[in-house]
Structure formats: structure tokens, C-alpha cells
């Protein structure tokens, strides 16, 4: 593990997967690569944990899986967003944004709490 690796919460990884798939269908490896690429490898996620998440999402009906052939002609499992998944992504993303905003407010606030005065 890198020192500056960020431990991801379960829900966060789901959100990342949904977001990734919102660009189009992809197999697990492509999802891992994309997250790695977009975050400059800051989120050193254990790639294995991606798969239980994928299967759980499939079970919840947020994504759908089908077998296809990859670029190098190998049999791979492709995932795509379902309508419900898209809906979920929107809801989760906005609550994520609200949460980030709240945390940011706390971190950047110049107001001191009363007991610190």
C-alpha cells in the first residue's frame, strides 16, 4: 500500500463504478484502469474489491452484464448501466457533492468554535 493511498468507503466505490460506466459499457479491467487513470493512481484501490461491488450492483439491477469479446479477442464480461443505475448515479452524485461541500466548508471555515475563543 502507498502511504498516501486513500481507503475507499464501500458506497464510494459503487459511485465510481456507476460514474465510469456512464460513459459506456466496459469490463472490470477497463473500469479499474479508468479509475486509475482519472485519479492519477491516487486511489490505490485493491482491484479485487471491484468485483464484489460489480456483482452486487448487478444484483441490485443498477448495471447489467453480458459476455463479449475484448479488443484482444478474449471472452470478457462487459457491464453497462441500466436505467435504474443511471437514476441511482444522479441521486448518489448529488448527495456526494453535498457531503463534499459540507466537509470543505468545515475545512476552510475561519470561524472559531466558541470554546476555542
Amino acid at each position, binding site marked *: 500500500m502507498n502511504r498516501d493511498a486513500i481507503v475507499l468507503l464501500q458506497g464510494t466505490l459503487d459511485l465510481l463504478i456507476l460514474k465510469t460506466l456512464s460513459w459506456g459499457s466496459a*469490463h*472490470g*479491467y477497463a473500469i*479499474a484502469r479508468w479509475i486509475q487513470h482519472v485519479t492519477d493512481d491516487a486511489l490505490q484501490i*485493491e*482491484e*479485487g*474489491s471491484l*468485483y*464484489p461491488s460489480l*456483482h*452486487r450492483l*448487478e*444484483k441490485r439491477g443498477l448495471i447489467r452484464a453480458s*459476455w463479449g469479446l*475484448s479488443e*484482444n479477442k*478474449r*471472452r*470478457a*464480461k462487459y457491464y453497462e448501466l441500466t436505467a435504474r443505475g443511471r437514476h441511482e448515479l444522479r441521486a448518489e452524485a448529488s448527495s456526494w457533492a453535498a457531503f463534499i461541500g459540507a466537509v470543505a466548508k468545515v475545512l476552510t471555515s475561519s470561524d472559531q468554535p466558541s470554546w476555542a475563543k
Partner: protein
Amino acid sequence: MTPAHDPTWHRYLRFWGHDAERDLDDELRFHFDARVDEYVAAGLTHEAALAEATRRFGNLARVRDQCAHIDSQWTRERTMLDMLQTLTTDVRYAVRQLRRTPALTAAAVLCFALGIGANTSIFSVVDAVLLRPLPFHEPNRLVLVGEKLPRFGPDNFGVISRGEYSDYAKLVGRTFSRWAIYEIGAVSLTGDGEPEHVNGIRSSAALFDVLGVWPRRGRGFTGSDTLGSSPDVAVLSDALWRRRYRSDPSIVGKSIDIDGKPTTVVGVAPPSFQFPLGGDLGQPADVFLLMRLTSADDKQRANSFNTFFLARLADGVRSGDARAVVNEVAKGLAAAHPEYYPKDWSVLADVFPLRDRAVKDVRGPLFILLGAVGAVLLIACINVCSLLIARVADRRREIAVRQALGASRGRLVQQFLAESLVLVAMGGALGLAFAVWGARALAAHAPHELLEHYLPAADAGVLAVTGAIVALTTLAFSIVPALVPEREALSAALRDDSRSATGGRSRRSARQTLVVAEIALALMLAAVAGLMVRSFLRVRGVQPGFDADHAVTVRVGLSPAHYPSAGHIIQFEQRIIERLGEIPGVRAVSATNDVPMGDTRVQFALAHEGQPSATTPICAGEIVYPRYFDAMGMRMLDGRPIMTGDAASALKVVVVNATLARQFFGNGSAIGRRLKSGGLSAPTPWLTIVGVVPDVREAGIDKPVLPEAFFPALQTDTSLIQALMRTASYVVRTDADVGQTMNEMRRAIHALDPELPLVGLQPLSNIVTISLAERTFNTLLLGAFAVLALVLAAVGIYGLIAYAVVQRTREIGIRLAIGATPANVLGLVVADGARLAAIGAAIGLVGAFAFTRVMRSVLFDIAPFDPIAIAGASAVLLGVAVLASWLPARRAARIDPLTAIRS
């Protein structure tokens, strides 16, 4: 740990089939391999790349388990939904397919319905008679004790001599937990309404207690009822209470006249209660009376046997154990009471489970019927199966296209399963309707008391059996047709082999095998039915020994209250005979204790002078008034009949039947020889034989004839008159119309005493019919099943041959083109059908012989491999087979060679 590698082509295969574990491995391996490839491309060695990829991935095994867990939960949920969805689609599709071929569908449904219906109805009867527990508490522990006297032959009487009950009763606490004795007989009900005779039973107080059944209203008997000072009490059957007393709610406590004596009704039995169970155990009673046992009863030993000893086995005692104990008691009787038994007298006893005794006569026929309907169902299934195969063959194209489009074999099987499911469900529903109706009809016409109050309930057991039959049928007969084409459907159909000269070999042989099996089964059934019919005809041909036409019989009961002594009885019965003789057209009148084939058989041990052996034979006996043989239309073979002069003061005489004369005296004349009742040492008078009459089938047309003696009523001792002549049967031979004579008789008897109940006023020919009722019933039923089987088999053969002709159109065309005549073609096709029938018949005959042992029990005067019955059945079956192939053969012969070859 990396998942094992598969050859690539395997994976392509898995584009279709669905294998969760393999899929998961593939998915993870793809990720892994891609990562390794990436690192190798970046310049790492293969080992280093593997290590790095593994580090990046984390714990592979854990991930795999997690995913598998998630998947399996999900699959379970999804499979249920999927299956339901698939099933609905399949059923819809199946219905669509079936509607395309309405004739075939109707045939299949009808086959199933007939098979299932026949089975369910027979099974529900078997269930009621043989399987369902008797309506008593723990019925399997109820047994009857019966005695036999070795010196009078090998038969067990099934009853005991009344006084001996006290010795068996001592076994309570060790072998038995409770006991009761009972005797059966008719009782007369007078007073309110039409006087009538009903079945009655006199029992000791504990009867209801032993059976573990308590009256619905009121109470059973108690110990205090048996005291001499207490009034006479009775329990009524539910049926009698409803019918005669119109469900009077205040019946308990009322006094009614039974046998002319005021008797208090203390209870009404529950509706389901039926005792005795019928047959030779006695008809179900309508009136239960109390037997008051006194010390005088103790002397009733080893002379008359008509008391049933019913006992409940104690805990942990099996009937086998009881048998030995009871036999010990019986062997010790003579030593324990030397004052009552003649010297060197020995008694043996046995124990019979109640149910076995009750069903012993119907078990054989019922099992034969059950086997027969089983065969019918099998034939029906085979038929449907062969229909389905024929259809599969017709649908080769469809199947091939669907396979090419990627339908898996499992999917196709599922599809056929749905189709058969629809067929069987429809057949089953229709069959169940048949069954309910059939079982009702059976119960209504079955001449057996066990079914008297039996209403065929579609109870759980019967439904379960039907369900099982349906399920098995569906499975067996849907998978088969799906498997047959799979060997060839894809390849052959895509090549379009409708032009190939012969249909698929394997399919043809599969269907031929089915039809052969069908024919074998049908023949077995036909042979069994043939035997039954043959023996029925034999029975019908048996002369009853008397002239049943132009004669009427009626039974009249004289109550002990109004006709207390034997003298009263004799006197009054002679008056009745006199009055009946005055009816216009009447030629002869007499009376007897019971007409032939009635329900009371009286047997005597008769020794004759100079008898060599120590064994005294048991003979049938009848007590008759003068002119009895005239009234019955029996001519004398030798000597004279019983006459008015054979009175109390005259020489004691007896008339015997031909069998007795032959058995006792061989070819010598029986006239003038002497007989003694009860054995040589018995204190009874010698009786001189004055006449010989032809044999009469006393016990029933299909029962063997016993040696028989006829005793003059005027010379019979008083206790026998009291016991047997109180309910004498009259026989009136007339030249007038029988119906009119019956009315005149009723008037004449009621003119003497309007209170007298008349029982069974009927033409004498009726008793012959009734005696044959059970055999007639079984024969008809078996015959019906055999005809059903033949029809089904004929349909099967027809279908097969017709289909084969279609398949061979081209071949036949070629044959015709190169010079075969239509007659040749006809012969060719019919020979095909006949060949199959012959093979099936041979197998069927072997099968029919397997039933020999069971058949022996129901056949009359005929061997189980009677050549006429077997040959007849085979001929009928072959005829049916030839006929069934004849129709398609004619079509084949009319084929136009040119069109055929081009097709």
C-alpha cells in the same frame, strides 16, 4: 492461485450454456491476464509482472468467494422468477402448438383421461375396502377367535360355541385387553308403521367398548343393563333411526317393539359405524340388542357354532402370539369341562384379524381389477407417447431451426415437458371427473357391504395417488419423444431428409417397441378378461338344482312374544302354507328354514351306520315342510319326498342329496340307510333315509356342493325349531302371473296377522341373480377394461402403421413403379402390423401366465391357462391389429408411383 486454463473452444461453447462458477473464473482471469500483459509490455519479466498483478489485485480467493456468494443468492432469486416466466411462455407456446393439431390433442387427452379416470376410481374403491382403516379405534388390534373340530374335517368355523366364551375371556389381561361376543340374526320391528325385518345383532355389553366407538346420541350398553331386573335395551343404527324414525330427536328413552317385546332405545350409533362388516361376518346391523348371559349358556358347548368372539389384542401382543395362546385354551377345553364334552373330543382354535376376515372374498378380484386398470393406464401412456413421437418427427424442421438458433437440448426438453404437462393436466382433470363418477357408480353397483355406506370421497390418499400417476406419466412420456429426435433431428432435418427413403431407424424402432409393449399389455388384459368371461359362462351354465321359474319366495318372522314355543311356530306356519295354497294358480307351497343361496347356512355333523373313520363329516342341513321338493321344482332321483305323514310320532326320516348318497354309500343305494346327527356316540335318534334328490347349489351357484340332508320340520326337536324356523322362508310354485301372486301372498299372510313383517318377497329366480351379482360385476368391469385396452391398442397400432406408410411413401412408390401390385403393397403393410402384433402377443401371453396364482382364486371350474380363452383373446387382438393396419395399407396401395417418387 490462478484459475485453471480451459481450451479456447470450450469458452466459445459457453456463449450459450450458463455456468456461474466458470464465468466468475473467466471474468477474474481476464482481468489478471490483462494486467500481466500490461506489465510485460512495460518491460517487466513475466514473474515480476505476475507478482505485481497479484499484489495489485489483493486476495483472489476471498474476492472469488465474495462474488460467488453474491451470485448464488441472486441466482436463486432469479431462477425462480425465470422459471416461472419460462414456464408461462412454454405453456402458452404448448397450447398454441396443441391447438394446431386438435384431433391429436383430443386423442391424447382422452387417452390420459380414460387411463387416469379408471385408475382413480378403482383405486378409491381399493382404498375404501382394503387400505383405509376400519372405522373403529385401532382396528388393527381387533381379532376374531374361531374354532375347528378336527374330527369334523379341516375347516375352521370362524366362530365358537357360545359357552366356550368364558374360557377365552380368561385371557384378558395377558393376550386380550377386552372381549365381546355377538350373534347375528334378523329381528322384526312392529308397532309404529309398516312391520319390517331388519338385520340385528345380539352382543355382550362390551361390544361398543371393544370397538372403541360410542353412540352419537344416548349411550351404549352398561353392565347394569344385563341384570335380569332391568328392561330390554337397544341401540339403533343411524340409518334405521333416520329412515324408520325420521330422525326423531327424542328417540333415546322411547320404547319400541322389537320381536314383539317392548324395548327401550338407549342410543343411536354414529353414521360411519357399520358392524358387522358383511360377508360371512354378518350383514351390517340396524338394531343392536343385548345378550344376557346366564349359567345356562355355559352348557352350550361343542354343539352349535354360531357365536363370534371378538377381542382386542393387549399392548405388544401380535396376532401370531395370540394364535398359540388361544389354541392352548381350546386344546384344554375338554379336559377342563369333562361333563360337557364327549370322550376323546378335541377342539382347536385360531385367531383372525378382523379386516382379513372381512375382505377375504373381495381381495383377489380387487387386485385383479387394480392390475387391469394399471395396464390400461400404461397402454394409454404408451399411446400418447407414440403420438408425441410421431408429432416430434413431423416437427423436425421446427426443432432443427430452433436448435440452429441456439436452443439448448435442455430447453427443448423443457418445451416438450410443458406440452405433455398441458396434455396430462387436461387429461387428469377430465380423468378426475370420470373417476368421481366412476367410483360413485362402482359403489352403487358393487355387491359388497363394505361399500354400502361408502361415498367415494376424493380424499387425500386417492388424490395423492392420482397426482403421482399424473406426474410420473408426464415425466416419462415427455422426455422420451424429446430424446428420440436429438440424435438425428439437427443433422437430418437440416439436410431435409424428407426425401430419404426410410424414416430414421432409431425412431422407428423406438415406436415399434412401444407398440409391441402396448399389444403385450392389451393381450394380458384380454386374456385375463377372457378367462373371467369363460368362467362366468361356465357359472351361468351351472344348474342351480331347482326350477327357479314360476316360483315366488318370501321370509316371514314370528316374534317370540306372540309365538313363544316351537309348537306355536309349527302350527302357525302350517296355517300360512295352507292359506298360500288357496291362492288361484298355485301348484305347490312349502317352507324351509332358508331357501338356497340365502344368508344363513346351517351345518350338521352327520355320521352313518358302519362309518369307518373317526371323522364325522360336516353336511349342510335344511329343515323343510312337506311338499318342499314340489315347490322347488326338484324331482326325486330315488325313493320318496318328505310327506305330511312324517310327523313327530312316526319313524324319523331324512332325505339326502346325490352328493351325500355318493360320498357315504358309493354306488350302493342310500334308501333305508341310517344317519345320526352329531356323530356316532351322540345321544340323538337314528334317521332313516327315504329319498334322494338332485344336488342344489346351496351356498351359491359358484360355490361347491356339500353333502346335504333335509329334515322334516314336524320331526325336528324343539330347540332347533326355535332357533331356525322362527324366520322360515316360503316357496310358492304357481301357474299364474308371478307379480300378481306376490300381491296375493302379501294379502293372504297379513289376513292371518297384520303385524307380520315380510322380507324379500321376490321371484325365486332373483336369488340366483343375486348369488351371481359379485361375479357378474367383476366380469363386466374387467371386460370393460379389456375392451378399453383393445381400443387404445388399436388406436396405437393404427397410428404407428399410418405414420410408417407416410414415411415410406417414396419406397412404396418405387416398389409400385418397378412392378409391385397394389395387393403386394397391401400385404406388405398389413404384414408389418401383424408382425408387431404377433411379437407383442407372445410377450403378453408370458405375462398373462404370471397372474395364474391370483387368477385361480376367482376362476370357476376353469384352468388359468384355458386354451379357449387364451386363443380367443389372441385372435381378437390379432384381428384388431390387422384391421388397424388395413386402413393405412389401403391408402398405401392407392399411392401414385410418380408423385410418390417426386415428393
